[in-house]
């Protein structure tokens, strides 16, 4: 048997059928454009081995998006292969456009009408006799339902199908589509025995789109996702898995001790390698739960509805409605939020990835709690809330400015809204398993390598000798030099800088690093008190503490978030994000520290001068970029005619 190519409109169930035929676990969703690349796998079809290919969804053989181009190129390169054209029974009229185009091109096809269980009034034998190709009703999720399709694949013969409108085709897209539609209307009037139900207009939809209820429902859904992922359920799973992992570490440690290996090798393996693996494992329960929630909402069809509701507001800053989920999840964990940007188009993905580090992730909360306990015990809620708000407002302003300066026009928003479908638990679990596995595969290696690098920096001296004294380590040595840079920000202290450097690996480690420096153990109260004492290894003034908080809020996301950014967007963008966040954090901390210091010292004139210098700098930067993007031909900062001439 030849290769089999699965072709169809977006969100018709191609990947579901691919998974059923090949026993795979490729990601599927009730959301168009889930598959963005060609998937190929060998399958046993009635005793014969054949290759099955799952293509991204296409509406026709004219490409519009990069995914469609991939699919069309693949089809053109594999003309002799057998095509299974998957149509959605709920939307046969539009799906038949592609079917007819495939027949016009002379492809050998079998039409599989998916979700046939949802529509009972289609006469399939009449449809098959009109199209002169096998038409098989299926439910792609069920193996038994696909049996009829497999049988027809063995019997298919190559034959040129005569289509009555073929002589009317002129080569002009609009006229050809009209000819096809008039033929389709004729077919549909014959094969559909009663009117099809219009989906997307259910009572649930009316509630979800209600202008007073849409936002509260969305916030409630997001709160539920947060509670499940980062609340008691997620934490308990994390504790459970960390416990298992700790036991594993004990077993490995005992084994290494028995081997009598040198202390440095023991430390490298236990703290560097296994510690790095531990950081991946500690993320896993939250990742699995997050993806379970996301997959459930995606399969339900809720994501596309949210995208529609929020597209309007987010377009103003160059994003689309599809970014909403990633942005909200960014308050939980930047890494997981970055993973959810996969389905966005490249431009929106970059914008969303740029905005995400401004949403304060949950790992920064222990640092806020510590500094607030030390300096703002009475107003800690207000200070933490102000930090969150400051991050969001600054992120929105920067994204809006970038959007204003960008030459790129926002892409038109056209999206099919799928029907509400309650997903099965097994499908949700399968998807979550696949996503978790992909996460470990994509990020795990990078995290372990980074953990080893941190071990090398914090356990070796400049002469590459193993040391147990952190003061002699490369990390501390580097921090001593770098600390000079942070003096203008009010925390030019070696250990404060070490904490920041370690925070790049994981923000959770900042507090433990400060605790080690001040030698006060695990007590938060003792550590908070030590931060106010000038005799401690790390201490801050009030202005310095605020400046440190702002820096923690804004500086580079952790290594796992950066490695996901590199994988999902690009390496170049990950480097840019690292540098950009650092510059923004430095600038903001500098201004805030100097303003507060000036205010405390009653140096109002100095404070005013700082504000004026800052305003002038911003104006110059904005003007520079505006000038850079100006089109000489039409004198506009954004060239409508795309006639940019420098």
């Amino acid at each position, binding site marked *: 048997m030849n290769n089999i190519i699965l072709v169809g409109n977006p969100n018709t169930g191609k990947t579901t059928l691919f998974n059923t035929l090949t026993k795979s676990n490729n990601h599927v969703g009730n959301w168009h454009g889930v598959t963005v690349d060609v998937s190929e796998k060998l399958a046993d079809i009635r005793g014969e081995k054949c290759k099955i290919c799952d293509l991204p969804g296409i509406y026709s053989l004219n490409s519009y998006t990069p995914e469609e181009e991939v699919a069309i190129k693949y089809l053109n390169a594999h003309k002799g292969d057998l095509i299974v054209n998957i149509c959605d029974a709920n939307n046969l*009229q539009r799906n038949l456009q592609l079917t007819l185009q495939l027949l016009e091109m002379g492809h050998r096809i079998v039409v599989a009408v998916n979700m046939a269980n949802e529509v009972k009034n289609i006469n399939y034998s009449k449809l098959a006799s009109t199209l002169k190709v096998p038409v098989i009703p299926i439910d792609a999720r069920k193996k038994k339902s696909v049996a009829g399709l497999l049988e027809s694949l063995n019997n298919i013969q190559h034959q040129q199908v005569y289509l009555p409108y073929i002589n009317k085709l002129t080569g002009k897209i*609009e006229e050809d589509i009209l000819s096809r539609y008039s033929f389709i209307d004729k077919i549909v009037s014959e094969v559909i025995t009663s009117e*099809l139900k219009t*989906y997307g207009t259910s009572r649930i939809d009316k509630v979800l789109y209600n202008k007073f209820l849409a936002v509260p429902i969305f916030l409630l859904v997001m709160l539920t996702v947060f509670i499940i992922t980062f609340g008691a359920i997620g934490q308990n799973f994390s504790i459970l898995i960390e416990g298992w992992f700790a036991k594993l570490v004990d077993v490995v440690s005992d084994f290494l001790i028995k081997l009598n290996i040198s202390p440095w090798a023991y430390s490298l393996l236990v703290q560097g390698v296994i510690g790095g693996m531990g950081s991946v494992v500690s993320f896993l329960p939250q990742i699995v739960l997050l993806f379970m929630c996301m997959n459930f909402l995606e399969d339900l069809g809720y994501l596309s509805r949210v995208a*529609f509701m929020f597209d*309007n507001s987010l377009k103003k800053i160059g994003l689309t409605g599809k970014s909403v989920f990633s942005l909200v999840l960014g308050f939980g964990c930047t890494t997981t939020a970055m993973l959810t940007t996969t389905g966005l188009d490249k431009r929106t993905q970059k914008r969303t990835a740029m905005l995400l580090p401004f949403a304060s992730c949950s790992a920064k909360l222990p640092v806020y709690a510590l500094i607030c306990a030390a300096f703002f015990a009475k107003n800690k809620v207000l200070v933490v809330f102000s930090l969150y708000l400051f991050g969001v407002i600054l992120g929105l302003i920067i994204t809006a400015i970038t959007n204003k300066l960008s030459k790129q026009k926002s892409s*038109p928003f*056209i999206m*099919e*809204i799928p029907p509400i479908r309650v997903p099965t638990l097994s499908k949700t679990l399968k998807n979550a398993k696949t996503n978790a596995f992909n996460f470990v595969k994509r990020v795990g290696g990078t995290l372990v390598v980074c953990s080893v690098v941190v071990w090398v920096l914090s356990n070796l001296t400049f002469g590459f000798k193993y040391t147990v004294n952190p003061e002699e380590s490369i990390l501390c040595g580097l921090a001593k030099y770098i600390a000079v840079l942070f003096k203008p920000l009010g925390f030019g202290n070696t250990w404060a800088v070490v904490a920041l450097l370690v925070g790049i690996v994981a923000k959770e480690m900042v507090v433990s690093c400060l605790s080690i420096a001040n030698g006060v153990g695990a007590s938060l109260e003792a550590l908070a008190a030590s931060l106010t004492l000038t005799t401690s290894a790390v201490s801050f003034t009030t202005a310095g503490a605020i400046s440190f908080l702002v820096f923690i809020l804004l500086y580079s996301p952790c290594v796992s978030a950066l490695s996901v950014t590199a994988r999902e967007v690009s390496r170049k963008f990950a480097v840019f994000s690292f540098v950009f966040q650092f510059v923004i954090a430095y600038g903001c901390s500098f201004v805030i520290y100097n303003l507060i210091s000036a205010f405390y010292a009653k140096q109002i004139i100095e404070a005013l001068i700082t504000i004026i210098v800052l305003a002038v700098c911003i104006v110059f930067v904005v003007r520079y970029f505006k000038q850079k993007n100006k089109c000489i031909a039409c004198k506009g900062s954004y060239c409508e005619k795309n006639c940019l001439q420098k």
Partner: protein
Amino acid sequence: MKKLLSELSEDKAAKIVELKAADTKLACRFYELGLIVGQSVKVLKKTSKGRALLICIRGYCLAVDKQTADLVVVDE
């Protein structure tokens, strides 16, 4: 009465009389999705200030933004 699709009120249906999509790729996407001259279309929902619309065409739902809907002229 001729008007832009974006100007059509919620729950109102009209026939498409003209497509102003200058970008041929976008025009092509319109045709594929069933947005062709003579086709009837119904506005199901509009977001605030009508910046995005949910329309029903050929029995399915399509979400479009105002800029895109402005390219479709309908006769109510």
